[in-house]
């Protein structure tokens, strides 16, 4: 039996019918073809599938698509506003925060949330915030630097806005 859902993803509203057991990550990847959200474990242990649901970073392999009815989802594809990279994306690029790139979308979404909650995180706070995201390539140091760089960029932006 399929269930009707209504979800806004990256600002676009989608109506669809999904099987109740369909995972959110499969809905995004297979039904909406948003393949930037990756699957590294399907058991909520790696963070590769992290997206923002109503502003909160969640692992999209731990949710069913039906639970999302009425929600707003942001995926990595929706992070760059009007074609301009998000400061976290810029930070990852400038500081070589990625190698194979597989963990990267999840890392970036998590990092964006870390900075939203704490615009000036310490090294330790960043690492703590990234606990749920595994990266096998980078050794995390460049990721930490990428997030610090993004924090600086976001601060100078808000300073300009004021």
């Amino acid at each position, binding site marked *: 039996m399929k269930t009707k859902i209504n979800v806004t993803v990256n600002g676009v509203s989608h109506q669809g019918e999904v*099987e109740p*057991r*369909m995972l959110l990550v499969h809905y995004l*990847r297979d039904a909406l*073809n*948003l*393949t*930037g*959200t*990756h*699957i*590294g*474990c*399907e*058991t909520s*242990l*790696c963070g*590769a599938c992290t997206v923002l649901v109503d502003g909160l970073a969640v692992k999209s392999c731990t949710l069913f698509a039906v639970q999302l009815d009425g929600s707003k989802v942001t*995926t*990595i*594809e929706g*992070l*760059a506003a009007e074609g301009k*990279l998000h400061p976290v*994306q810029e930070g*990852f*690029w*400038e500081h*070589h925060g*990625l*190698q*194979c*790139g*597989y*963990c*990267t*979308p999840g890392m*970036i979404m998590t990092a964006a949330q870390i900075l939203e909650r704490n615009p000036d995180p310490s*090294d*330790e706070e*960043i*690492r*703590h915030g*990234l*606990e749920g*995201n*595994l*990266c*096998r*390539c*980078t*050794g*995390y*140091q*460049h*990721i*930490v630097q990428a997030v610090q760089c993004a924090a600086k960029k976001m601060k100078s932006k808000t300073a300009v806005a004021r």
Partner: protein
Amino acid sequence: MAENYVGKRVKRTEDPRLIQGLAHYVDDIKLPDTLHAVFLRSIYAHARIKSVDTSAAAKVPGVVAVYTGKDVSAKIGPVPCAGALPDLKTPDHRVLATNKVYFVGHPIAVVVAENRYAAKDAADLIQVDYEELPVALDEEKATQPGSPVIHEQFGTNVAYKLTAGEGDIEAALKSADKVIKQRILNQRLAPIAMEPRGVLVRYYPGEQELTMWTSTQIPHLARTQIALMLGFPENKFRLIAPEVGGGFGSKLNVYAEEALLGWIAMQLNRPVKWIESRRENIQATIHGRGQTGYLEIGYKKDGTITGLRYNVFADLGSYFQLLTPAIPTLTGLMLSGCYKIPAIQINVTGVFTNKMATDAYRGAGRPEATYVVERALDLVAADMGKDPVEVRRKNFPAPSEFPFKTATGLFYDSGNYEGALKKALDISGYHKLRDEQAKARKEGRLIGIGVSTYVEICALGPSQAMPAGGWESATVRIEPTGKVTVLTGASPHGQGQETSFAQLAADQLGVHINDVTVIHGDTSIVQYGIGTFGSRATAVGGTAVWYAIEKLKEKANKIAHHLLEAGEGKVTFKDGKFSVEAPKVKAASVPEPVLPAAGMAPGASLPDPEPHGKHVSLQDVALAAHLAKSLPQDMEPGLSATYFFEPKNFTFPFGTHIAVVEIDRETGEIHFQRYVAVDDCGKVINPMLVDGQVQGGIVQALGQALFEEVVYDDQGQLVSGTLMDYAVPRASNIPWMELDRTETPTDVNPMGVKGVGEAGTIGATPAIVAAVVDALSPLGVRHLDMPIKPETVWRIIGKNKTGAA
């Protein structure tokens, strides 16, 4: 004016697609009408298959086909193994099990359905009737009489025995003032690339064309091998490694699932996809390491090493993958470390066990060797009551002794071990650290300093030493518009060669880096290549690019000479332009022409320079080469060059890693205070990429030293089957890495680059273990086995407390 890119921290050209979620890994490629495959795998480590009943599975709505070993074994050739050793016992490794299963995760059947959910449901309904058999799990015990035998036809679990090394080891150990012995473990590890394996295959029956997208490090080698397995013509078989989400050796292989998916696509004439789950990835993608050994090291009173012997049991698993039996031979090659050891012997016993195959995991046999020799040196130092640094220095070859011949039969190309060591000691403030440690010890604190000085073998390698060719290829083309296309046979999957090769090409051709595109991983586009592993992509693949460009420039130069009507004049190439060097007399009398720079009014009005200052751009030459209206006589049109580079030796990067830890007496937890690494990988093309490689490697090494272990219980059940139980390092339990470099070029290639992909996993493990052992040395600890868990440490501290009380 062209910039210089080589040696600079150039941002990666591959990143924009990756940071925006726009890249295409296998599972991101969608073809209409695709079927999905799910495997049923053995739940036992060793069992006879009495029957497999797929009837219920076949009835699940959406299921298109179910295949078992009986259906396919005669139709698909065995999974290949390229490791040829004398008297090697090679089991017949079929893509699906038929009569027996040999490890948990061994594939038995495959379900193909309209979607993954249906395929999974159906796989759950397959009934397998097993007869459980006793298991052989421990690589040492499996060699003893009375052990269950895995492959009955061999009558033993010993797959091979091999002795290597030079010098009279008996005499060397006898001549020593003292011989130290130690049992050494290199536990089984899982590579855990974050992207699991995945395969998508499409077959066009009309064109008889097979296209396979697979997450691999070796597209060409995989194509050849899978073509042979399928009996399908290689030249109609296109294999594409799309974006690959990490490999670390685990995708330097040819897997049963790949060939089987190819066969299924041809049976059903529909695209079929299989994406490995993480559980399958830990069960049935190759593991690494897995050695239990016994070392003996002899030394003289002054600390001079006289000889080293290593008797090792290598846990091969139940079947061979591509390089399974060959990995321990690399351990043998690197046992000299960066020391002068006159006699070395390794005795390898390769052993079948009821586990997944071991194979190349980042470092592939070399971390094992480095760990053994570094632990050995530390044991000597501890025994002598000397600083481990002093014992190392005592045995280093001097820079003037290179090329340095080892007793393992290698010639180290170049090295300055003292230089890297000294730099690392300076950065860490080693002597001050030792003073602080002495003070802290008096206060009862457990602080440890570990030093490892390593050398690794990279740029694999001369074809003589490789199972399937050790060269690499490149084609460089200048398109009619002047854009540069580089095709490399290497197959980067995170290392960043799209950028570093573009840096190289941009500098050599004097163009902007954005005008260079590096293409790899598609066998229909790229000339045959070997692939990316063994820290070879830059040193061998980059060198092929370098030579291809030199070759291309020769041709371009001739065309330019023709276009410039240079006659006797010499044409030179600089900053993307070919110019005629003025004949000497003229040049003396005419001032250097000022070339017009954009927007500069006076310059802009200058008339065209005289013939001696005439130039044509690379773009002009490329266009002329393609229009072919005015070319030197008998010259082929077009502007491209291909080069297959065969290295004459390996390269031997080296370095020093220093770890400083403090142990929490209450919990046994290990906290890093410092981590310093000085690596020497020869010339550096992009320091940012080198740092990234080193950091990633160090953290994987740290995983081996402190957390990671593939654990099978005594029934052969995989206990560490999820990322919950298999502890990959997370962002919070690792130190800040202070990195630096020395630069000792090699003459093995014209760029002087050595390779760096595996340095971290090789250099760091012994440093970290040494630091923990050093911290516990006041409690009488001389050696600990990896992974060193807090529990182990806590027990040692606890025992000591009771002992003291």
